[in-house]
């Protein structure tokens, strides 16, 4: 190893210590503020946010297929007036409603909020004055953070797929008043920044089950903020991880080992 390489290694080492000492805490702090801000956008009690905010949305599809007026309180639809046309019988209009007693819970919102809270918890667990001694420690925290944030984002972006009979049997469906006929089902879910309403109609054609659906959606303003901040936080995490990985080739880099062995190839 010549002098240049030695010098470079020493500089890298110094830089690595700086990253662990200063940069990690700075980025974690920044992440924390982003995530807390994100938590405050949620309409549910979360991390010092007391809100049970209420929003009203109107969902319609173009040829007057269906119409739905929704009140979203927190993570539940507390009130909705739903009407949609039944496909086969052209002039039949099916009406139903959701009321205060049997709200339609959007589990996706609660899941995302819980994952977010978990992520904030990981940062809270790190004492501001704690001195990191190895990159593995930090990488472990980042890995946990990335996992939670990813799950939070996925919960909103990719709604879980459900079987139709599972939907039919669900508690949400049973809370509708009046109850829907057996061949009809409705569903509310969130996909990215949109609240989506779908009406399903089951029919049997030549012995095979057929499902027709029509849907309407509307944008939920706070969701796009939340998604934006989650994505930003994910990106910050990933950058910190990449930064630390640069040093991973020098495996014997731990704080305080500078004078000791520095074997570079």
């Amino acid at each position, binding site marked *: 190893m010549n002098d240049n390489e030695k010098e470079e290694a020493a500089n890298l080492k110094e830089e690595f210590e700086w990253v662990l000492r200063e940069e990690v805490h700075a980025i974690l702090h920044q992440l924390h503020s982003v995530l807390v801000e994100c938590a405050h956008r949620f309409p549910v*009690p979360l991390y010092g946010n007391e809100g049970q905010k209420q929003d009203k949305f109107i969902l319609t599809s173009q040829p007057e297929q269906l119409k739905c007026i929704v009140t979203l309180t927190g993570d539940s639809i507390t009130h909705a007036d739903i009407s949609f046309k039944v496909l086969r019988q052209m002039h039949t209009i099916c009406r139903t409603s959701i009321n205060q007693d049997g709200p339609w*819970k959007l*589990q996706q919102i*609660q*899941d995302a909020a*819980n*994952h977010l*809270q978990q992520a904030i*918890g990981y940062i809270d*667990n790190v*004492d501001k004055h704690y001195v990191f*001694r*190895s990159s*593995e*420690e930090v*990488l*472990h925290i980042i890995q946990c953070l990335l*996992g939670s944030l*990813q*799950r939070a*984002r*996925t919960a909103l*972006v*990719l709604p*879980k797929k459900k079987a139709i009979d599972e939907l039919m049997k669900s*508690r949400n469906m049973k809370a509708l008043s009046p109850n829907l006929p057996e061949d009809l089902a409705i569903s509310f879910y969130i*996909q*990215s920044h949109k609240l989506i309403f779908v009406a399903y109609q089951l029919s049997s054609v030549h012995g095979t089950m057929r499902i027709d659906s029509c849907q309407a959606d509307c944008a939920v303003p706070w969701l796009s903020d939340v998604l934006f901040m989650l*994505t930003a936080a*994910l*990106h910050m995490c*990933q950058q910190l991880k*990449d930064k630390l*990985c640069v040093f*991973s*080739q020098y*495996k014997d880099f731990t704080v305080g080992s500078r004078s000791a062995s520095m*074997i570079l*190839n």
Partner: protein
Amino acid sequence: MPGTNLIVPVVLWGKHAPTHCISSVYLSRDQKTLVTGCYDGQICIWQVDPETLKMTPRCLLVGHTAPVTCLSRASIIQDNNFIVSSSEAGEMCTWDLVDGKCRESVKLSQVHTNIQAYHMCNSEDLRLFCNGYYAEILIMDPFSLEILFSLSSKMNPDWISALHVLRPSSRKDDVVLAISITGTVKVWSLLGHENKQSEPIYENESKQIRCLNALSLNCCAYNQRTVLIVCAKYCQIYDAGDFSVLCSIQAPSGERWMSGDFLAPDRVLVWSTEGKGYLYKLPANKLRGKAISSSVPDHKGFHGPTVDHDSPVLFSILAHPDNKLLSCPPAMRFVLTSVGGKQRRLLLRGDSAGVVSLWNVDDAAQPQPGNVSSHAPIVLTSLEMAWAEMNPSPVGILDQFSHPDEPEIKLTASIYLLAANRLVVGRDDGSIVIVNATHTVQLQLLHGSHQQLDDWPPHQLLLGHNGRVNCLLYPHHVHPRYDKAHLVSGGIDFAVCLWDLFSGALLHRFCVHAGEITQLIVPPQNCSPRIQKCICSVASDHSVTLLSLSERKCVTLASRHLFPVVTIKWRPADDFMVVGCSDGTVYVWQMETGHLDRVLHGMIAEEVLAACDETLSDELGGALTSGTDLQGLANPAVHFFRGLRHRNLTAMRAATQRGLAALQAAERGAGAGPLAEPARARRAPLTVQGFRSNPADPESHILFFDIEGLIVELLSEEYSAMSPASLEAAGLITSEYKKVAALTQSASPDAAKKISDIDNYRTLLPLTLSASAADSVTAPSSGRFDQVVSPLIYFHAFKKRIDFFGRVKDKAGDMERLLKEKDKHGILAKMKEGAETMQTKLQAKADQLKGHADNKVLIAFSIQDFLEIKASCNRNIDGSQICGKEKPARDKRMLERVDLIVDSYDIEDEPSLKRSSLSTEGSLERPILTNYFYQPLSVKNDMRKILEKASLPHSLRSRGRNFKILFFNKYNKGIYLLPGIIPKTVYQNFKGNYGKLPTKQRTTRRTRKTKRTKTTRTTKTTKLTREPNEGNDLNINYQLEFKYKTESNNQINSKEESAEPEKLSHTLPIYSYFQPVY
């Protein structure tokens, strides 16, 4: 093509123990088995001596793609050796601890964080009570892994953060006590007849308490009126009746609580993130219940303000003497065990360094007045320690390069060139070693004179990388359109190097990426001609490039990805490369122009990725179909205009062609499919695959011995080695059979009884067994030959038979020519029969074969045979021959050297090799060289996770069934299949008879090899030269003669035919560049 096969993996672990950052631990109640799950997804099974508590690693179960979060027993029966594991990706597996097989696996959308196994009333066996990232409690069956029913909440439904199931002493039903993350305590009571169809089961009671994010909840087993709830900052004792706080314990500064349990009515054990256990005595006047003698119901101190002497008192600490730095909180568990009627209470801990420690809680459970006692663990062990204990230490595949006084160079990447039988290994220092695989394996596994030779086996060294070699690719193996000579490597120095295997020269160095190269893959074959000459490389700066090997330049640089690339898929017809990132984003790139066509998120991204699989399998399945695509991607007109806009000729051409194709769709027959892949019909007896549990680890290597391929190889060797005389002698089976049988039956009545038992199973088997009996070996009477073993025995016995009859011939000397002529065909028929039986039996019984120690010995011996024959009798299979080496003495003890072994696993669950499976070249998996390892992408959707852990080849990870690797070492007696289990007689029997095989003595002589070093600018090539040996011609003559004979014989069976190309390859070297230079 048969989907089943018996493959024996032998692991050459190397000097370093695999990284095992423990995420969950489990100790069986009988103290015989310890199980640890790690953040990389592997599960290690340890054998524990119930008396001394000595722990020895036994096998590594590979299957999860994410950290293992929960481990739980599966049955109430003590001897029932099953466990259930659950990972952060929602995968659940039921493992058989005896043979390490995965009995059931399932992937749920619900991810568990905790599982309690509980025996419910009215149920036969345990039920798993699971909670996690969902709002219900799921009750699952541990063997079918089905959700039996779930418990829902009416009041404030939210995730359940902890639960405890118990049966109160006064009641017949089971009670589930749980707390949600927002602090609502709920109680369900179960009668045992719940099922999936029943109405949702809601809680009977619920109460909001001030306790957010609880980590664990435990009822006191000794006094059911108290409950311990642990949160990170404090743990609290609650009254089970009204859930009022009785007392609270703050976490020590700098530490957080993880969990805890009751030791006695008034004593608790709680443990912290630092891996320490703390024992507290609770103030008696605060507690309620019958078990608290000092307390009176409605004691007035219950709800009074806490004064000093009322707070819990710390009296014992369980800690490690050296407080080593942990990179993450250890996994800990409080276990109750009973050995020989003696109950023990233990605290188990597994930490980030892979260290397992165990405290005896009973030692510490008695408070010493006045002082706090500290206790060290009674057992402390880790994989590293197990490795260090082994002498000799576990072998690595290139151990000949390591010298004790030099720092070891870690192996970091490897591929096996099947046809050339070469192993290419990239190392930590930037060098790439190319060596004959059989030779190096033989060197590590078998004792013999070759170990004394310096610098053996000969190797080639490619020097060009500056720093670790991360990945290797031999494109010709993936598709024959690539040059045979090209080898591609990617390193930590951001460079992709193109090598000439013939000359060892560095042809080109691509410096395009801005991060270390992590993966090299081959685009599919139906790309445009220009792209067909490219390989695709992925780097840690999240960039992907297409590097043209013929133009020696970068064709496309796709580098706008914000997150690590986890999957690459292709739409060759549209000239699209579809790059999936870890955040779920999908980037669609035009390959020819390098234009970023679009960026997709969310659902659409998922659909596009899925659509790539569909079109690919459509195309490969037969005619090119059109109109099957989503998002109008394949609408030819749309596509044509898009191509026009981006001036992408290829895309335009493709669109036009597809438009025409759509019109002619009806006429297009099935023959329009893509070209056939190179035939992979012949099974390779040996393949070598790199393996590591963590990306930072050096590579271990798994040798996959395909038993069927091996037997074919051995049989063909056997034929070619037989002199006409011995063939003739062997031909006398039928006439001699009765004589011999009569002789041996009278000699050993015990054996005869056994023989008659097996007699009706295999006509030839009795003969072989009686042959052993004649040698006064008691193999049959050891009672270990069951039907499963028989085929292999038969195989060995087959050799003995030849041997035996050779001797019979000498003694008796009254053979008749006529009979000989007749029976020459006879033996061939028998051989055929034997081979077929072996094959069918092996396939049918592959499952049962596992776990049988005997079989392993046998298999090990066939492997040994193979290695020896391959190495010493090998004629020109790769153009080189071991010179001057006598056939090594037969007393090799392979089993002793296979330090860490070996178990068979079957690929029965693998989807049979379909055409669509050949499309996997496009994914980010490693190039894998044999037909067994091709798998359709659609089999597993969680490629992402797999690829994040790019360390492990996809083929291993995403196998439908998981597999395990056993640790095994002769010097570590007691671990596993050691002489106690192996009938020694069998061992000796085979050993004894090995030396007498009628193999020809070769008069080869090792000549001095000269080393010539050619140095190009950055490349150093080392070649070893040898002279041809004299024995060679003779062999070939024999072979030809034999071939002539068999060809004249109409009874050559299919087995024989399949072995035929093998023979040709012996005489005609395929890879001339591996020819020694004279």
